């Protein structure tokens, strides 16, 4: 146990299920799918023609002149951060901005800006490339825009660990507070790459579902019929705060971020270790860091992306590191895979599960994989008292991040 407790005092999100945390959570608890058929012209040329697009477009929220200067991934990070910040009650609280940090990452970054500006370069020449191109495509852009709006001066950080990014950014926030470098860190992940090039790249890897005629059933973690992930877009942001600081100002406290474990596989650039060795070590580290054991974990929000290999490896890791007793769910069955935002959005789901004593469902689990010996909340949300829960995130490159949240 460390001497510095860190708690969660604010939540913000914009996702395929809703434009804020409340609507996203409501969608999850009701087992709604955010996946739909892409109707854009370019999609017709792709093997994958489905995605989980944002429920509320950023143009409905952010004024147009400001939006023009931001990549979509930056705009939605800002939307989620604004909600989390308002929710925390820190605005106008007299917080010393030199004690406020930001840790927000993205898996792919401003790729759509890069590609759109390249179209302009090719068609109209260098002089017509937008002067906003660089701040729009730089990977630290989402963190920087959020830091700028909040006036954060303790440091603005960007981590990139593919699909583990959101969770690793939250883990960095924990470290920043524990090490005394900040009292409050606005942390999370963002992703917006529903564009033909990233989709073609993932499709060429055969990583994505091609269930084009049945989009709402395409993301089906642990089901025998799973055939890859469904790309989603969105952002999730949490406000992490030194517990003493939060209690001193009488803040609403959602949960405690009790521990974090990070490892790397050292195995393959994209394939997970088949027995989940790196994941097992990450979960073990997180449990020890949190001062709990596998027995204490009663709920797991799994990474489970609906890929044939990854889903099974995580089953093995959970069995080894935690046991088969927790109630497990894969919310990606509803949101699709938000890549760099996934770990952040799923942390929010984990935190709300603790608060509301309920586990959101894993939809589409009609014919469970023979290897599945875990207790999954299939089809319907399941009421459950949750003193401690685990959230897993894994990313291309062999990144493994496990976060333990406990009741405050």
């Amino acid at each position, binding site marked *: 146990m460390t001497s510095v407790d860190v708690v969660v005092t604010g939540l913000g999100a914009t996702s395929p299920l809703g434009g804020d945390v409340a609507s996203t959570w409501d969608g999850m608890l009701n087992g709604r799918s955010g996946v739909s058929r892409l109707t854009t012209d370019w999609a017709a040329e792709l093997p994958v023609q489905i995605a989980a697009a944002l429920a509320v477009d950023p143009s409905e929220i952010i004024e147009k002149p400001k939006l*023009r*200067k931001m990549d979509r991934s930056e705009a939605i990070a800002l939307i989620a951060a604004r909600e989390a910040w308002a929710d925390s009650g820190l605005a106008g609280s007299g917080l010393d901005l030199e004690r406020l940090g930001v840790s927000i990452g993205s898996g792919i970054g401003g790729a759509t800006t890069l590609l759109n500006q390249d179209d302009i370069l090719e068609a109209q020449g260098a002089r017509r490339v937008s*002067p906003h191109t660089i701040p729009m495509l730089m990977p630290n852009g989402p963190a920087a825009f959020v830091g700028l709006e909040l006036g954060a001066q303790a440091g603005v950080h960007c981590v990139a660990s593919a699909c583990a990014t959101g969770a690793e950014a939250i883990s960095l926030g924990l470290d920043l507070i524990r090490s005394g470098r900040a009292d409050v860190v606005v942390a999370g992940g963002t992703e917006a790459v529903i564009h033909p090039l990233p989709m073609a790249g993932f499709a060429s890897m055969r990583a994505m579902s091609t269930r084009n005629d049945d989009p709402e059933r395409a993301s089906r973690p642990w089901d025998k019929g799973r055939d890859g992930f469904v790309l989603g877009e969105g952002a999730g942001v949490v406000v992490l705060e030194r517990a003493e600081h939060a209690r001193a100002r009488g803040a609403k406290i959602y949960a405690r971020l009790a521990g974090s474990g990070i490892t790397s596989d050292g195995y393959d650039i994209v394939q997970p270790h088949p027995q989940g060795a790196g994941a097992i070590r990450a979960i073990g580290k997180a449990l020890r860091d949190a001062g709990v054991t596998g027995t204490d974990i009663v709920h797991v929000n799994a990474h489970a992306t609906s890929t044939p290999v990854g889903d099974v490896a995580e089953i093995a890791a959970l069995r080894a590191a935690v046991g088969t007793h927790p109630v497990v769910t894969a919310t990606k069955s509803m949101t699709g895979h938000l890549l760099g935002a996934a770990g952040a959005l799923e942390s929010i789901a984990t935190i709300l599960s603790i608060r509301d004593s309920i586990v959101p469902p894993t939809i589409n689990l009609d014919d469970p994989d023979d290897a599945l010996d875990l207790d999954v909340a299939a089809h319907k949300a399941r009421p459950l008292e949750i003193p401690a829960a685990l959230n897993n995130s894994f990313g291309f490159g062999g990144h493994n991040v496990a976060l333990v949240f406990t009741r405050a």
Partner: protein
Amino acid sequence: MASREEIVTGLADILNELAGVEQADVTEEKTFTDDLDVDSLSMVEVIMAAEDKFGVKIPDTEMQNLKTVGDAVSYIEANQK
């Protein structure tokens, strides 16, 4: 050939579209930076849009001399084809 009034109106439309400036605030004596709060990157965009709209070339060396809306109007008026 656009008149001074037409150029002011055209610039006001561009500034509204690109930088969120109210059209009514765009008058000749206003400075882009201090009065209209147009940042340096957006100013580059405004110049690019003005070139397209009025058929002029505004070289980078000239851009820094365009402090006020009136400066830009005068340059465009003198150089439009």
